[in-house]
């Protein structure tokens, strides 16, 4: 048993630290911070600037991609270090849809033309992707999806509606699961994996406002959208296989341990400034106990993640255990956003940055913490709800 990083890993860690220090733009930090505080939507530039910088540096925008496709091909330990350092420095996270999701599907199942067409733009961050999986009637039961793609000559004609399409408002492309064979014996067997240019006539994006007022997700409608058959990934009706591959493929960092650690640090600072019963809130036994409980859970989760990582490094691959990381990771994220909101007392109330008021009130550190709490209720629902994750563990790990 050895949890120390090797000298090479430590050197790598320094290299990452230095790189972030020199290359993460202060303007980006300021822009994102000021918008976050007012609960304002981040721009496409905010979301992709860091991605673009990393894309120009040894494929660091794609830590797990093979070198052959321009990725960094980090070892699992390096990936872990990289994510940790980015979180510590509070770098804007890289949108997962291109790098972690469709990219690996394209280089694994796509043909040469598709690789040449799409991988460079994903890597560089120039092309913005979104994900077309969920539908109004297909959430946890994804395989029941209805969006249809009917082949007519050189095109698929796509009709239907996707929902929860995160950041579709900025997207250039969407990867979609569509039904190509409605007669298949099992619903999973009639699904195909299609890449669709968002500029194609018939594609409409409508915003969905979340309860904190933020605009992250959308409805995406397809009305007789003509998609060239060249945009089919792999074989027709095999889409479910690719979708499952995608789900299992990139789960490192799913637990968000480093970012939650950082958040707890912040909460401790806030709780040192806030007063309760004439003493800093951090001295309050009830509050202190909640912080400690979150820290213990996080410390355990960090080692669960390291154990998964060690398994991964040994080539055993992360299995359905990643469901555990998702459940616990999002539990803690939610606990932490709640503690942050709780720490600021009455100043959880002001909802800044709306059309009704654009001015700051209250302590600088308090702004939008309640918004974040409300927003983060999503975490135990997205990416396969935590109940579905339990079903996965029950089936795949416990054999029930």
């Amino acid at each position, binding site marked *: 048993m050895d949890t120390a990083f090797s000298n090479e890993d430590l050197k790598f860690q320094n290299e990452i630290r230095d790189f972030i220090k020199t290359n993460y733009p202060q303007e980006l930090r300021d822009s994102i911070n000021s918008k976050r505080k007012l609960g304002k939507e981040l721009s496409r530039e905010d979301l992709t600037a860091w991605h673009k910088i990393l894309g120009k540096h040894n494929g660091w925008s794609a830590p797990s991609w093979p070198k052959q496709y321009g990725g960094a091909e980090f070892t699992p330990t390096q990936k872990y270090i990289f994510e940790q350092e980015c979180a510590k420095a509070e770098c804007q996270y890289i949108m997962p849809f291109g790098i972690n999701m469709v990219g690996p599907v394209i280089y694994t199942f796509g043909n040469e033309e598709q690789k040449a067409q799409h991988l460079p733009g994903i890597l560089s961050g120039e092309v913005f992707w979104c994900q077309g999986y969920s539908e109004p009637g297909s959430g946890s039961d994804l395989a029941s999806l209805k969006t249809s793609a009917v082949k007519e000559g050189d095109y698929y004609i796509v009709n239907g509606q996707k929902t929860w399409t995160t950041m579709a408002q900025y997207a250039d492309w969407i990867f979609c699961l569509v039904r190509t064979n409605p007669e298949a014996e099992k619903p999973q067997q009639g699904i195909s994996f299609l890449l669709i240019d968002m500029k194609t006539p018939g594609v409409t994006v409508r915003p969905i406002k979340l309860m904190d007022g933020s605009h992250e997700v959308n409805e995406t409608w397809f009305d007789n959208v003509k998609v060239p058959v060249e945009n089919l990934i792999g074989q027709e009706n095999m889409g479910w296989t690719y979708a499952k591959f995608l789900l299992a493929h990139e789960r490192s960092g799913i637990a968000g341990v480093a970012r939650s650690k950082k*958040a707890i640090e912040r909460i401790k600072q806030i709780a040192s400034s806030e007063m309760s019963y004439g003493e800093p809130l*951090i001295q309050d036994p009830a509050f202190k106990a909640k*912080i400690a409980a979150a820290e213990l*859970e996080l410390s355990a989760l960090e*080692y669960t993640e390291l*154990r998964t990582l060690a398994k991964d490094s040994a080539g055993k691959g992360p299995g359905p255990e990643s469901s555990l990381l998702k459940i616990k990771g999002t539990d803690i994220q939610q606990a932490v956003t709640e503690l942050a909101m709780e720490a600021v007392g009455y100043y959880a109330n002001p909802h800044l940055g709306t059309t009704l008021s654009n001015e700051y009130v209250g302590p600088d550190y308090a702004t939008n913490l309640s918004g974040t709490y409300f927003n983060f209720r999503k975490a135990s629902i997205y990416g396969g709800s935590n109940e579905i994750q339990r079903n996965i563990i029950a089936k795949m790990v416990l054999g*029930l």
Partner: protein
Amino acid sequence: MNFDYTEEQTLLDNMVTSFVRDNYDWDTRCNIVKSEEGWKEENWKQFADLGLLGVPFDEAYGGLGGKSADLMIVMEQFGKGLVVEPYLPTVILAGGLISKLGSEEQKNSIIPKIISGNVRCAFAYAEPQSRFDLNDVKTSALLNGDDYVLNGFKSVVFGAGMASHLIISARTDGDQRSESGITLFIVDTKSDGLTLQNYPTIDEYRASEVIIENLKVSKDNVLGEVNMAYDAIEEIVDISTIAACSEAVGILQVLKDSTTEYCKNRKQFGQSIAKNQVIQHRLVDMMIEYEQAKSILYMAVTADLSNSDERRKAVSAAKARIGKAIKFVGESAIQLHGGMGVVDEYMVSHYFKRATMIGVLFGNTDYHMKRYMTLTQSGISSSDEAISVSVT
């Protein structure tokens, strides 16, 4: 970065696993715990033959020079078998104190005998009023010529009835709760002035109340420096706490696995109860708690235990978190076993009881939570940096 065992550790793991498999089937264990003695000397001899009694001791005294990770391996397997022989009290707790504080002469005379199985020790530290506070010591030791005279009362001393020797903490200076002024004495269990009231514990181990009346102990049998034992006691109790946590993790694994099996086999309404999602999710949550417990144990075992603050923090984090897992996994195991969970005859209740008592051992969840908080949340200053917050 790896959590694999070394070759030696794998051998050790295999050895303890086969001992438990071959010598500790359920019926055998039931007979042991029902016996007058409450343990089996033959097993102890076998521990000696296998070298298990020497795991943590320095090679200079015939030990294997093992570390916390090695003790973890032994205790985890002992946990799986609910092995009742007094390994933790003798080898880890008392043995740890002797290794830490003993003079060369004391170490040379005692440690080889522990390793060969001829000496068993117990550590008498808790008192009726002390609860988990190691510094709260009323038992007194007064110097009279070349002897100390001890008077007092020690509570719930695990393994005392099986021990040839006791290590007793007593106050030689300072007031009742002072950290300085505590001294350790090593005495023969059969000494005049020592009365043991032996009893079984709820989880079928054995413990004793120790009544100390005008017990004469020669100056030569002081362990370590007079008045200065506290730091060593805290350290060795911490190391022993990791061992107890390891035992708990072994038990939790059995509870989780056997409950999963039970639910697969138990049929109601014409189908296995494991087909019910409400049962499945409870089993998954048991598994998650087990994994989290194991992870935080690994955290503690791989922490820098030579740094005392690091050690305290890691140990209390692990004990508090594992305490929480014990409660959830244990209570769930009983609940999902239904009627079979609450009977004495079926093994699940025995695992539950042992795990619950480990929850109390060396300080319960609240106790360690408070210690952890004291260690981690003092000295935070609000003016260190301008705060700008984004939690996402």
